[in-house]
Each structure stands twice: as C-alpha cells, then as structure tokens.
C-alpha cells in the first residue's frame, strides 16, 4: 500500500508487491500462534456403571481467555490453558514435539451461537461370545480392552466408556447406555472442527485383526461392533454433527497489535464451502503486512480430499497462506497446521532431518521437511499419489507424503503458497513459501538498517555533478541507493538472495516530489530457487563385440 504523499510522520517503511517485476521486505521469525477451540466449560461425563448406578468424570475447562492470545510454555501448560484434549492442547503438543523451545501462543475462539459438538456411536452386540480383545482407536491412538465370555453388551459398553475416559489427552469423552451397551463418543469442543477426530475399532483374535473403520459392522469371537452417527471419510470414520462455525473476527481485532511469525489454523469447510474464517485470516495478514510491516504467514492444515483442497486453496489464493493437504489423516487439521508451521520455522532436526528452518535461513529449501509426529493415513489409498501431488502443486496445495526415512510418519513434499492464480489464470510468480519468507526477511532487515544508519540525518538532493554529499549527518538518494545495494549484496553472500547485480538497475531511490523530507525506494528480491528436479537421460549400450 503506497504511503500518502501528505504523510508527515518520520518513518522508514516498505511495501511488498508479490509476483511483480520490481518490489521490496525479518529477522528470525520465532512466534507461533495457534488459533482454535478450547474446552469452554467443565465437561461432566456420566458413566452408567450398572442399570441403577452411575459415576462421573470431569474434564476441566481451559483457563485461557477467549479471543486473545495467551502464551503456553509447555504441553501441560497448554492443557491448563485450553483444556486437556482440546483442539488447542493437541496442537500445542504437536508444536512442542517438533521444537521443544518454540514460543507458542494459544488463541481460543468464542464458539458460534448454539454450536454443537461432533459425535459418533460405538455399539456392541453379542452372539455366542468368546474371549478376545477389543481395540478402540481414537485419532490414531489405541487402547485394548479384554473381553471375556461372561461379558454382556452392558459390561462391554461400560469397558469401552471407561477405557476412553481414562485417556485424558484424547479429544473425546464417552457415555454409555447400560441396556444396549451403546457408547456415544463426543468431541471436547464445539463447532464443525469437532467433526475431525477419527474413531475406529478392531477385534483381535489369535489369528486375525478385524478392523471396523466405517458403517459396516464387523464380528469376531461372537462380538459385533457397529459404528454409527459419524461419517466415513476415505479410510477413516469421523465424528459428525459438529455444527455452527465460530468467527475469528473479534480475535483478529484483538491480535492486531501483535506480530506472530507463523499462525496455524484448521483448513476446513462448512456445508461444502470454505469456512469464512480462512479468508478473514489471510486478509488480516495482507493488511498487517501493508500497514504494520508484519511478516506473518498462516498455515492451514486440511484433512479434506485432494479435490476439495484445490478448490479451497485456489478460492483463497493468498500468498501469505499455505494449505497443507493430508487426506485420511488421524491428526486434527490444527495439529497438521501447527506442526508444519513449527517445522518450517525451526526445521526437522528433532526427526533426524537436516533442514535448518526459516528462522535460521529464510531461503532454506523445505522439500522433504520431516514432521515429527504426524501419522501416515490408516489407509495408504488416502496418501497423495503422483498425479494428485502434481495437481496439488499446480494449484496452491502443499501435499504431505509418507516420510522416506521414518515409517508411518509424514514429510512435506514441497512448501508452496496458496497463490496459484492471477486473474483466474495459473500464475506461479509466488510459488514457494520462501518467496514470501525471503521478501519479508529482506524488508525487515533493510528497514531496520536504514532506520539505524540514517537516524537523525538530513536529506538533500544528489549534487548535479554526481559528487557525493560530503556534509556531516546528511544523506542523499544516491547514498541510500548505494547502501541498499550493499545490504542486498550482503544478503546474497549469506544465500538469502540471488541475482542482485542482474537487477542492480531496479534499485531506485528518489526524493519525493511533493514531500521534500521523504525518499521513495524500490528494489527487487529474488530468492534462490529450490533445487527441486533433476531430469537426466541415460543411454544404455551394448558391449562392443
């Protein structure tokens, strides 16, 4: 956004024009903001321990205030602030797992009016019951329950309920109906994002593991398990019925004075369309970049299908947003976003990788970035295949892939922005997230340097004969231009920029025609290209006779 010529406040500033031929832009991004849901009030879960007796389990509400950001210093602190097993708590766990000393802030959003939590029902039925093991898996984590021939549907339902409620870090609570043994699993927070947790069961015998992963009932050792009330999604079964989206507007307003280097939020749809919160966040980041020079980027984690991911990413098309697709995932969208955002900043050394992260090197290549705890989908058919990966990378979606080094874990294919269109046509002028990160870093560095270097200086015109102005505490446009060139060459030496000399003529500093106390400057930033592809041709030959 151009500064008005009538502006009088002394300042040094710069705007970024992405994807242009000429434009401008931090140093060590460190703060991670997680926006999501907390446990709003204590959840008292009733467990029917017989036909006439009950017990209760209380899940304590999070203490953090709504619609503001509060710093969490550890996973347990996050549990206190957001409630154990809440969306925000689980995302904080993923963040600290990627980088233990990350500066993490939690921002719980006020739930929508009349919001409901997602749920699903696990129903046991028996016929000729024998001994076996029932495995209940929530969000990829399992507990095994011993079943004996003397059990009834009531006692099995009770066992399932107790097993689930004994897992305080799980995102759900469970209640049972004594007569039928049916167990209702309910998310700990409200709204459409509460539909994301997965639930499944497995019947374990000495010779087989029979999974119950959708609405089709499965039977073994006389026990039948049926899942109802949820939604089959690829290879997983998710909760359903979570409704009424929240609105991040008030939160964003409250956060306006504060810069967060990376913001993580769930990428989700409501009634078939992108949540309005997505555009609210990306718009806010663009506005704050223009108005306050905040070098912020948002990462959306998504469990949507590859096709839906493309539709939503292209619909948003923001260079300050990253849409990470992980269909069929057991991990929550916010967990995906949080771990990718953290890994981008601080690298993957925790997972044995060698990528240093953007905090150390804004131009680092994030291909194959290892994600510490994100799980591979239960069904490998949900993984991005080659065609889907190519389509995603052409449409502003960052796909995940199975880690080549760690079985069952995930890695980033390539870190790209959501911007893939210009005027409705494909445009990759701001393809990789590093284009944004480098521009941001350089802007902050140049602005900081100019502020420090010419503090208290007077501004005069360049002399007509090209002789530098040789007066104490006085600077002219050409001297500032030389300084900017020197700084850019310094950044090139560090590996953050390239082609500085090739674009030397685009560095321009001129005195403003209307305001004699102001210089207007422009310069380009060209981030070094990632080494993505090696395409060789190998000639097979026969041995000479």
């Amino acid at each position: 956004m151009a500064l008005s010529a009538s502006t009088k406040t002394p300042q040094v500033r710069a705007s970024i024009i992405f994807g242009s031929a000429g434009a401008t832009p931090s140093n060590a991004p460190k703060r991670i903001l997680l926006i999501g849901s907390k446990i709003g009030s204590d959840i008292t879960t009733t467990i029917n321990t017989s036909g006439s007796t009950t017990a209760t389990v209380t899940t304590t509400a999070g203490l953090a205030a709504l619609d503001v950001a509060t710093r969490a210093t550890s996973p347990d602190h996050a549990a206190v602030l957001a409630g154990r097993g809440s969306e925000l708590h689980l995302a904080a766990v993923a963040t600290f797992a990627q980088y233990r000393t990350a500066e993490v802030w939690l921002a719980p959003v006020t739930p929508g009016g009349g919001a409901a939590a997602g749920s699903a029902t696990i129903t046991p039925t028996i016929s000729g019951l024998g001994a076996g093991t029932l495995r209940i898996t929530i969000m990829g984590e399992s507990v095994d329950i011993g079943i004996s021939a003397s059990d009834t549907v009531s006692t099995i339902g009770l066992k399932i309920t107790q097993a689930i409620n004994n897992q305080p870090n799980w995102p759900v609570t469970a209640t049972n109906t004594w007569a039928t043994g049916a167990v209702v699993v309910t998310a700990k927070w409200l709204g459409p994002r509460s539909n994301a947790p997965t639930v499944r069961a497995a019947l374990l015998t000495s010779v087989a593991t029979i999974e119950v992963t959708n609405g089709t009932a499965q039977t073994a050792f006389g026990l039948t398990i049926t899942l109802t009330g949820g939604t089959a999604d690829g290879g997983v079964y998710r909760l359903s019925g979570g409704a009424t989206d929240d609105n991040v507007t008030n939160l964003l307003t409250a956060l306006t004075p504060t810069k967060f280097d990376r913001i993580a939020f769930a990428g989700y749809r409501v009634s078939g369309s992108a949540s309005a919160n997505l555009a609210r966040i990306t718009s806010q980041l663009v506005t704050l970049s223009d108005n306050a020079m905040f070098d912020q980027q948002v990462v959306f984690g998504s469990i949507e299908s590859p096709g839906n991911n493309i539709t939503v990413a292209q619909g948003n098309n923001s260079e300050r947003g990253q849409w990470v697709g992980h269909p069929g995932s057991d991990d929550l969208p916010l967990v995906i976003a949080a771990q990718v955002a953290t890994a981008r900043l601080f690298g993957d050394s925790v997972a044995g990788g060698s990528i240093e992260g953007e905090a150390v090197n804004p131009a680092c290549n994030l291909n194959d970035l290892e994600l510490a705890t994100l799980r591979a989908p239960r069904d490998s058919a949900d993984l991005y295949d080659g065609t889907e990966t190519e389509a995603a990378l052409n449409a502003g979606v960052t796909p995940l892939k199975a880690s080549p080094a760690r079985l069952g874990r995930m890695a980033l294919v390539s870190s790209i922005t959501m911007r893939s269109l210009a005027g409705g046509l494909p445009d990759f002028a701001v393809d990789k997230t590093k284009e944004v990160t480098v521009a941001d870093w350089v802007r902050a560095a140049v602005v900081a340097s100019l502020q420090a270097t010419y503090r208290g200086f007077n501004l005069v015109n360049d002399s007509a004969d090209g002789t530098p102005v040789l007066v104490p505490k006085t600077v002219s446009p050409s001297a500032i231009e030389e300084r900017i060139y020197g700084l850019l060459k310094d950044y090139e030496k560090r590996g953050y920029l390239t082609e500085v000399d090739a674009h030397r003529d685009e560095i321009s500093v001129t005195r403003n025609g209307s305001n004699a106390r102001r210089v207007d400057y422009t310069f380009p930033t060209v981030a070094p290209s990632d080494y993505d592809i090696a395409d060789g041709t190998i000639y097979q030959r026969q041995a000479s006779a």
Partner: protein
Amino acid sequence: MATNDGLYASKGYVEKDGVKVLTSQKLSMKQDTNSDDVDTILDEAGGFAQGTVKYMVEVESPVPADGFEIDWFEVCRAGKIHQLRFVILNPNGGIATSKLLRGVFRNPSAGLGANSAATASVAFHGREVR
C-alpha cells in the same frame, strides 16, 4: 580508460555501513592477492598458486574538539562485520572509483603529540563484495 589531461584525483573518503567518514587525513587501501610462486626443482618451471584476495584499508583521522567522529575503539570491541566503501573522487565531479568491502575493523589507536592534532586510526580487513 580515463584520459589524462594532467589532472589527477586527490580526494576521497571511506564510507562505513552507508555513512561517510568525513574527517580523514590519511586513507590507504592495499590488496593482498596471497598468490604464491610455484618453483619446481628440476625443470625450474615457474608457476603460481592462487591465493585468497583480501583488502586492507587504513584510516587516520584528526580528533575533533568534541570527540571522535567515529569511536573506532567501540567499533572494534563490538567485533561485528561491517561494510566499508573506499571511494576516490573525480576532481571534475562524481566518483572516479570505488570499492565495496565486507570485513572487520581492528587495531584502533589514538595518538597525541606536541604541535600536532590528536589522531585516531583504524585498520579494516575484508573482502570485496561482488
């Protein structure tokens, strides 16, 4: 190639991190190529080994009555990387030549003597920014 009409450059300055040092009374810049002769014993072949090209700049300034123009002692103690531009001015206007260097300041000194201004000097060792 500049034409020689009998007029020679005699003025210049150094610029530290974008700010000109205006009160120098002596400036010198020296390039050390660090290349080495390679002389083999039997065939007496004279060769050369390339070295790292470095620049040394020395700056000496009188000390104004109100104190240093730049306190080189503080600059050197901080030990940071700096940019230094060595500029020779064209007497007809403009810059005759300049060289942008990146390196460190070291060996600051200050001196006093009878019948002379107090002086402060510093050396800069760096490589060309290119």
